[in-house]
């Protein structure tokens, strides 16, 4: 059974399809003859051109969900189409807040298995998947065994987004059936945190801080170094949980995956869950006072030293330039 058609769950913000969506579309194009998108929200028609450019022929528009959390509605619409025999060979979903909800709902509703934390896909007669384990030191290869379509939940930054130069996709409505209580969670208010500088997962330089900084106030050094390098400031989960910085700064398994040109880790031990989110960086610099800290096993340049000395000196040196 060759892979004929792939559905990609296409998330979007006000500024268009998310980067992870474009990454998944690029991967899908290399794996199947036909790539279709499942989209929702107010801007689907406006996004049809970009989606087409990335190889989508048809966008199945679930509609503006009027404040409902997307999980149940989007999965419900997809499950109905699959039940009606219009399903694809495989479904790719971004690892994101709503993506995971959609994957879980769809899996249970359509009784389909789901593979998560995918960082690589290989085609052929069937899709095989790659999943990093133990902090990315080993890779598990897996596949679906039952009747498809399989649900593949793919991590950000697993593929390069490459436009294909396709014509705008055609948009067709995909109806949401009555879903009863499952579809009753609704968003009543949105809060957007202010951010300056480049986005954490798109910056060429990421400077991250961990518990080795000692206390919350010292995180300002991380932010200052990031700013001087036109980069973004990241964090380990330890200091996010401690309330020093918002969750949006977290790098790792439960946070962002980053692949900058340079990742500078300051006072971060290098737990497996942190490394899985930054190991793909092109160059890694670490400052840690413990020469046995695991972060040094992935560092291209490791400074065994006190972050309270090295980081201020670095900031001074950068300012002096």
């Amino acid at each position: 059974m060759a892979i004929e058609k792939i559905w990609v769950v296409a998330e979007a913000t006000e500024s268009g399809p998310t980067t992870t969506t474009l990454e998944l579309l690029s991967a899908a194009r290399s794996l199947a003859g036909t790539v279709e998108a499942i989209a929702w929200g107010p801007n689907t028609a406006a996004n049809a051109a970009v989606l087409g450019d990335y190889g989508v022929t048809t966008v199945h528009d679930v509609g503006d969900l009027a404040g409902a959390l997307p999980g149940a509605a989007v999965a419900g619409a997809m499950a109905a189409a699959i039940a009606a025999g219009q399903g694809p060979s495989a479904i790719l979903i971004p690892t994101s807040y709503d993506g995971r909800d959609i994957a879980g709902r769809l899996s249970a509703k359509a009784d389909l298995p789901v593979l998560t934390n995918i960082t690589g896909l290989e085609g052929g007669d069937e899709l095989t998947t790659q999943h990093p384990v133990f902090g990315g030191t080993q890779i598990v290869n897996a596949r679906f065994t039952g009747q498809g379509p399989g649900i593949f939940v793919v991590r950000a930054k697993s593929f390069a987004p490459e436009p294909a130069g396709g014509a705008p996709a055609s948009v067709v409505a995909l109806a949401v059936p009555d879903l009863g209580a499952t579809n009753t969670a609704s968003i009543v208010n949105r809060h957007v945190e202010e951010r300056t500088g480049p986005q954490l997962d798109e910056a060429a330089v990421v400077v991250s801080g961990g518990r080795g900084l000692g206390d919350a106030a010292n995180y300002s050094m991380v932010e200052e170094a990031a700013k001087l390098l036109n980069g973004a400031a990241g964090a380990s989960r330890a200091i996010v949980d401690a309330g020093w910085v918002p969750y949006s700064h977290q790098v790792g398994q439960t946070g962002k995956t980053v692949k900058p040109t340079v990742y500078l880790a300051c006072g971060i031990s290098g737990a497996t869950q942190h490394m899985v989110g930054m190991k793909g960086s092109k160059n890694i610099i670490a400052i840690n006072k413990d020469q046995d800290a695991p972060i040094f096993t992935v560092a291209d340049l490791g400074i065994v030293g006190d972050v309270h000395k090295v980081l201020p000196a670095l900031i001074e040196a950068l300012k002096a330039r």
Partner: protein
Amino acid sequence: MNVVVCVKQIPDPAAPQSLEPGTHTLARSGKLILDDSDAYGVEMALQLAEQAGGGEVTLVSMAPNGETSGLRTALAMGAAKAILVSDDSLKGADALTTAKILAAAIKRAEPDLIVAATESSDGYTGTTPVQIAEILGLPSITFAKSVAIDGSTIKVDRQTEAGYDEVTAPLPALVTVTAGVVEPRYPSFKGIMAAKSKPVDVLTAADLGVGAGANGQEITSVVDAEARAAGEIVVDEGDGAQRIVSYLESLKLI
């Protein structure tokens, strides 16, 4: 208000981890402990039940070999009772099979609210709770950074890419909580003693009328990832910052 908390019992994350030779699933034959991620859910459930002025917190877990040590920890924190599903046929069960089993067990407790973690520390699929909600026909709100109950409505601040959303749903509902949503209490000595005699109902898949079924997925192989080439590790002699500057220069970043 009756609350069910899904608690996973996992191999100690601090101990070396390995995969089963045959199935390549995580080896779970040793002693298991309460997943830290679920300690937040237990605390949340205890606080919500207290605030609602009563009701019971029931734990639901699926684990091999009749394991209860993680459940005892959560009972010592204050949960009233537990349902454990333990069955050889469930070894290496995938997320959907796990969800079917847990959903059937949860049904027995007739909860107003189900609490789980956003993802487990050892499996981290992050899909099991939503699969449970779908099987039970309930709404779900994931990634909660704060949870409140207002009459028959649950109000959640849900983490988003940009910040957070205020989300509501009618009860009964399922919520998944993030680390840090509340500060888990340490079991008191009294709690630990009391936990020893709290009821733990041990069930098999057959008791629940759920066929273990076939997993729809398999691991075909495990390979070593490409290791990064060893870097230069130097002790700071006052020149650490300068070395970083030179390195950044060599990359033409400054």
